[in-house]
């Protein structure tokens, strides 16, 4: 499985990694029972602190996407909850596509749409963090 972290600021690395693993699970690139690379291997592959991988794995475990077996490693576990989330993500993707289409029709450039999304997400993330 190939993961790649971007240098984009503004987002903790472990969140980037979590999203990529989640995406790999939702898109079917990783399936139930697949073993994930060891923390050391993935840290060296991505050249990130092992702490980043540890945090991503433990958050994903908390969310039910993977199961950690001490000594054996981390395994994908596509629980019912994760599958439901997969469906929700697909539905959300359709809504986003629709909205982007409408905004383009209104004459907005892609760059402007991207900035609006980013600004919206950043302020939403702030609000959520405060609660």
């Amino acid at each position, binding site marked *: 499985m190939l993961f790649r972290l971007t240098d984009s600021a503004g987002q903790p690395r472990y969140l980037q990694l979590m999203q990529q693993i989640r995406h790999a699970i939702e898109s079917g690139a990783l399936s139930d029972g697949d073993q994930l690379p060891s923390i050391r291997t993935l840290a060296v592959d991505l*050249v990130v602190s092992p702490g980043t991988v540890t945090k991503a794995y433990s958050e994903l475990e908390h969310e039910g996407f993977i199961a950690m077996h001490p000594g054996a490693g981390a395994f994908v576990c596509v629980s019912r909850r994760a599958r439901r989330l997969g469906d929700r993500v697909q539905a959300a993707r359709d809504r986003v596509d629709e909205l982007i289409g409408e905004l383009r029709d209104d004459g907005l450039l892609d760059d402007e749409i991207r900035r609006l999304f980013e600004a919206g997400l950043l302020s939403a993330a702030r609000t959520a963090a405060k609660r």
Partner: protein
Amino acid sequence: MSSPTVIETMGLSKLYGRSHAVRNLNLTVRPNRITAFLGLNGAGKSTTIRMLLGMIMPSEGSGTVLGRRIDDPAESVALRRDVAYVSEDKRLYNYMTVEQMIRFTSGFVPGWREDVATALLRRYELPAGRKVRHLSKGMHTKLALLLAIARSPALLILDEPSEGLDPRGVEQLLETLVAQCAEGTSIFFSSHQIEEVERISDQVCVIHHGRLVMDAALDELRESWRRVDVVLPGGAHVGDFEMQGVERVHTRGKQMSVVASGNVDAIITRASESGATAIDVTPVGLREIFLQTIDLDTSGEN
């Protein structure tokens, strides 16, 4: 036995004549992570590291490394056995070959890992039979790194380890540090290279003019620092944005750019209350955070 910190200093200072190389430094480095010690040239990084290793005595203050006092001569000898150190000049014996240097070092290191030394020798493509004096700067650094890592230390301290390395060498260095941390070694490295710090660190300590001006988790910095660009047709009033979290405000005509270390929500609210017609929020990279932080510190001194 396991300590919550691998390095801790209390009011650590070093005076050369009347000038402070290090000033009242309170540094806390936690185990099992990669901590970067970031600062400009001459900020006090090397002086601090040399005090941590008991190579020079503090003028004031004290500290512990792996629980041992750095200003106690007996303890600092024991300390240097458990800590591997790669110095800025990476001094090695010039008359030895690479192989002799490795054998010589392994002779007095109890926990020496021959397998690690052999693997790194191959990986770094070091010429075993070449005299140390004939190594390129990059090879010299790699040999010093090999000697440090094969000791399987609890703590690895490196002073500007990437100096003189080409991009491939830097990549190998970073991979080595990350792999070593995964083996359970705590890593503390000084650098003025923002990119490498940003890539592998968990924690970033910034030193400027001998003082600690920032100690933060990189993830938190990435999450909390933002630039808020606003368009205020009614005119921009800097005074309106004198609020918590605001680090810098720039104005040009009706445009205003606010760099904030937090409290972004309140800043956005203030902007819309002030009649902003456009609000753009973008992330801020470590380079800018670093420059902003040392900039503030300098202005505070004047």
